[in-house]
């Protein structure tokens, strides 16, 4: 059983087929997907910018993280759920699209970047929490996250027009 045949089966399932072929379902799910981006992306970017020392320098990094990470997780959950629905409704198109494949790789990279950050430099945040200038690993994590998420959005848009 190939991945492609799974995708073919997936988009033929009645509810998935319904999302793609009804007048309202696809644009509504897509709207929620785009709106959830605001809940996730900007709070994530604020933390990234703090890690780069570009905003909220007077607030400690851990406080900025505590304030904004719940937003990121809330938005991310909605994005994954609505994204899964959109994927199911046009699974074959996604499977064949280099943009979708790149998007999945970038999402993996974003996860890995966040995991590495939390497991390494953020564990010792107490040592540099109040500093406006953060360690280079924190800067690297912030810059990587910003670039990766811009790429994720760009791939999503490219996928829609390909």
């Amino acid at each position, binding site marked *: 059983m190939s991945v492609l045949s799974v995708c073919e089966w997936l988009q033929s399932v009645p509810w998935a087929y319904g999302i793609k072929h009804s007048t309202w379902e696809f*644009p509504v799910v897509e709207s929620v997907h785009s*709106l959830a981006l*605001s809940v996730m992306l*900007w709070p994530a970017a604020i933390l990234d910018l703090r890690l780069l020392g570009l905003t909220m320098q007077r607030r400690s990094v851990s406080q900025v993280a505590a*304030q904004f990470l719940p937003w990121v997780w809330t938005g991310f959950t909605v994005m994954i759920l609505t994204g899964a629905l959109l994927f199911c409704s046009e699974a074959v198109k996604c499977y064949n699209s280099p943009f979708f494949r790149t998007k999945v790789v970038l999402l993996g990279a974003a996860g890995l970047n966040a995991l590495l950050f939390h497991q390494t430099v953020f564990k010792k945040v107490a040592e540099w929490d109040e500093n406006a200038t953060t360690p280079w690993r924190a800067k690297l994590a912030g810059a990587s996250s910003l670039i990766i998420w811009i790429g994720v959005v760009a791939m999503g848009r*490219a996928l829609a*027009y390909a």
Partner: protein
Amino acid sequence: MLSESLRPYFEWCGNTWLGTAVRNTTWAFPAIETFHLLALAVLLGTVLIVNLRVFGLGRQYAPAAQLARQFEPWLLASLGVLIASGIPMAFSEPSKCFESVSFPIKMGLIVLGIVSQFTIQRRWVINGDAGGGKAKLAAVLSIVIWTLVGAAGKGIPYV
């Protein structure tokens, strides 16, 4: 929805250098839309962070007025990017915008959003008593208006 008498103006936009350039460049539209979406995330994200704080979310961190002041430059900058990226997209497909119901609704909501930002947001949230009824009204209006702007934008290709 729009009066037929406006059609020539839309057609004029489509024939400008800007409209033709975006139409004739393969990846221009999705590339511009990427920036449009990123800026929307900044604008709507800020609107949510500030205005949900009026309702007590994140009480332990900073008062709503302080958040609103701190984030206003980001809000205005993202609005600038949204307008600057929205114009070439609209110019590239003016007939779609003209036929669409979502487009004029979106434009009306943007005007409403900008007016409310400089009037009731400034007065009641940024400079006001953030726990009061007026601040709450301004907060709800802001969230509803800007969310609908985003949703109406998504609606342009469909209705």
